């Protein structure tokens, strides 16, 4: 219980409506928690609270040993980064990729100016984007490429926890697959802890170690991936899984797919 993310009794209310109701959640270090739920279940609110974008009414969030204060310090903010859903809105349209990537590096003094270009190129290489992208602007890239750049930017401050809020929902299926692969390999290489939100059971199955289910602002089930997808503990989890449209039996599959 020493490392990782710990959430205790987290409650958020908006004008009388309880968006999050006493959430208890732990994510072990270097694992991925997949958070599922239908629209309005509070999963995005939870992500934004953990990322420090919404101040909770009650509850404690701690990363490792350190409880995060209500008004987060810069050092605390750096440790938790977030990737958002909409690739059209995830990057400031008026800044070049170089400006976007170098901003936080310089602001936090992570690299000197002399090493800046090198570091930006390394970040782009991490997300498999060509270095020639540096002097381009976000609108010149496809949705998938923009999500990769947003990931590179989040990684620039060397976070411990990466939150991804439906990062592939707006992407085409083939692009979605490659972005998910990128997340998986980054998690390995950088020892990240991840909170991954999706409404898509296929995505959750592909990326998670543990699955948590939210409904009406409450956490209704936390289970290991294998168990959740075979025998969910709650009727709601069962309902969610059985509603997923299935491909017909005997559908073509490439032999080398895992």
């Amino acid at each position, binding site marked *: 219980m020493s490392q990782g993310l710990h959430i205790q009794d987290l409650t958020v209310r908006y004008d009388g409506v309880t968006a999050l109701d006493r959430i208890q959640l732990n994510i072990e270090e270097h694992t991925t928690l997949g958070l599922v739920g*239908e*629209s309005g279940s509070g999963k995005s609110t939870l992500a934004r609270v953990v990322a420090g974008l919404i101040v909770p009414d009650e509850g404690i969030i701690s990363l490792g040993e350190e409880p995060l204060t209500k008004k987060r310090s810069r050092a605390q903010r750096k440790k938790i980064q977030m990737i958002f859903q909409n690739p059209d809105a995830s990057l400031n349209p008026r800044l070049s990729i170089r400006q976007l990537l170098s901003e936080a590096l310089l602001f936090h003094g992570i690299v000197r100016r002399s090493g800046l270009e090198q570091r930006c190129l390394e970040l782009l290489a991490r997300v498999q984007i060509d270095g020639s992208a540096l002097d381009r602007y976000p609108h010149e890239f496809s949705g998938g490429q923009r999500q990769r750049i947003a990931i590179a930017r989040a990684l620039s401050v060397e976070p411990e926890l990466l939150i991804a809020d439906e990062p592939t929902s707006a992407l*085409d*299926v*083939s692009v*979605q*697959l490659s972005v*998910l692969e990128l997340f998986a390999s980054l998690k390995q290489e950088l020892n990240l802890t991840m909170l991954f939100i999706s*409404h*898509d*059971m*296929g*995505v959750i*199955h*592909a990326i998670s170690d543990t699955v948590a289910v939210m409904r009406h602002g409450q956490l209704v089930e936390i289970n290991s991936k294998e168990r959740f*997808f*075979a*025998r*969910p503990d709650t009727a709601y989890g*069962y*309902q*969610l*899984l*059985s*509603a*997923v*449209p*299935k*491909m*017909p039996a*005997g*559908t*073509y*599959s*490439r032999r080398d*797919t895992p």
Partner: protein
Amino acid sequence: MSMNPILEVEALTLSSRANPKLVHNVSFSIGKGETLGLVGESGSGKSLTLRAILGLLPQGIEQTGGQIKSSVSSAMVFQDPRGSLDPLCPVVKQLAEVISYRQGLSRRASRQAALELLEVLGLPLSLRQKDRYPSQLSGGQCQRVVIALALACKPGILLCDEPTTALDVTVQEQIIETISALQQELGFAMVFVTHNLAVASAMCSRLCVMRQGQIVEQGDTLSLLQAPQDAYTQMLINSVLPVPVLEGGEQR
């Protein structure tokens, strides 16, 4: 393939000034009561093809080749249910207006017909008795109203543009069931546009796989999914993330 098709699209080509081949040489036909799925990724031209059939191409896009022959009327269900309804008009009234316009009924009779249609679509009585506005309905309920609006035109073909994409999985399942049941009952044909192969396989008897404005492969749903010939189709099928089968089958 049906004997006498009610909709035939022949060598359809759609162009804008920037791209003369937004949709290029697309041909397919549908028989009575049949459902054809157009699947593909964004930019493949599937939605444009649908709009061309409806005769509602966006500004700046023109049909530059081919023809669309249809012996019956068509109606469309869009992706965003809330965006397809007038937010300032109660839903029953919206539906009644369409019925009175399309079927020439009196105000009272069309309201009665509207209420019956909403009942067929499974909207709870409480929503039908009082005049509710779209904002007071959930996304799934709105989509049911939109389908009712489309059906009020008594279409021979229902055109569906990603009708379940904006909905939660459990609601998606219900809407798919509703559409299928209505199709059984009323016998309309459907063109169903979706990027979700699993949804397409549940709804459609035949599939056209589109890519960059062209049909790369078409055929019977099951055989196409089991033995795809085109590399792009294979890639699309492989990109579907599997969800394991629940233990104990589908009961409980």
